[in-house]
């Protein structure tokens, strides 16, 4: 599972509230679509849980349903306490899990 983490704005100080935009490449199949050629139902396959950790402390947990669009975006706010590691763990209903990290580097 390919992922992307973006911190907006790019430049921030400790104490600022930034946005964390997390995207994952995922088909988010609802289990209600039919294969055009065979007519068979395509099984449900979707990200069902996302955890955001900062320096190993859980800051946000998400329970996600198949209703999110393909290649889903999950965007939250984050008050920067200082420098550290942001880790995002995304899991899908098939048990596939991916960990992505990025450094939080406040300027001053």
């Amino acid at each position, binding site marked *: 599972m*390919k*992922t*992307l983490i*973006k911190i907006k704005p790019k430049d921030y100080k400790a104490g600022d509230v930034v946005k964390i*935009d997390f*995207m994952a*490449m995922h088909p988010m199949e609802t289990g209600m679509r039919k294969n055009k050629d065979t007519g068979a139902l395509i099984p449900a396959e979707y990200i069902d849980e996302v955890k955001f950790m900062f320096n190993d402390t859980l800051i946000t947990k998400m329970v996600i349903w198949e209703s999110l*669009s*393909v*290649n889903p*975006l999950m*965007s939250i706010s984050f008050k920067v306490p200082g420098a550290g590691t942001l880790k995002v763990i995304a899991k899908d209903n098939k048990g596939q899990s991916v960990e992505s990290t990025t450094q939080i580097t406040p300027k001053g």
Partner: protein
Amino acid sequence: MRTLSITAALVCLALLGTVNAEEKLSMSDADKKMYAELLDNNPAEMDVAEGEQLFGELIGSAGYAKMLGVKEKDLPKYIAGFPRYVESAKRVVTLAHSIQMAAAANEKPVPKLESKEMVKISAYVKSLANGQKTNIDVKANKHMQEMMKLGQEVFEERRGGRGLSCNNCHSMDIVGQRLRMQPLPDLGAKETAAASTWPAYRMTQSQMVTLDKRMQQCMKNALLAELPLGSKEMVGLEVYVTNKSKGNTIAIPSVKR
């Protein structure tokens, strides 16, 4: 044929007129802003990142520039000129063709034009030209002139079960009128800039689509036989449509309905 053209025109006008009368159709500025924000986190972004990886494995920028006989720093401007005549191919080629040429030159498996791999790679390569103005030169030589002429013929030719041409919905006379709730776009206008904003993420398809594939999808819905990707007619059509967007700034991938 005269009867058919009158009917087609009446059909378009009646349909357009009826739809306009019905419900509130225009998107509010607030709605437009929300859709514009989709570009900040384009669902196709990760496909383009994969394209970069695949392109690197295939040949990479340095090798690609060398194959084309171009300085690597001039690649963005050069890419902004596709489709173009390439001497080593002895014909007008699309960006996708040039990627196939690169694969062959580097003795790597050649990606098929219809493949997802090709969509990702061509999107990445075209993104190198982001910020450049589409600078296709349809007068450059007789090959380009020939393809431009062919493209215009294809654009204007009525075919298929309903005798429709691209012009029925995309001529400048009809621009702005609504067909099934969507205002028909001016393919060359800055706001649409068709050739400068494809490949794009098509929301209704939940995937990234190239310009020629988009045109195939349009043909399918107008009940015209789809021209094969990479065929002479399709290349001509791409030349003609890209020329409409000449001078528009390339910004891909975009997000389209």
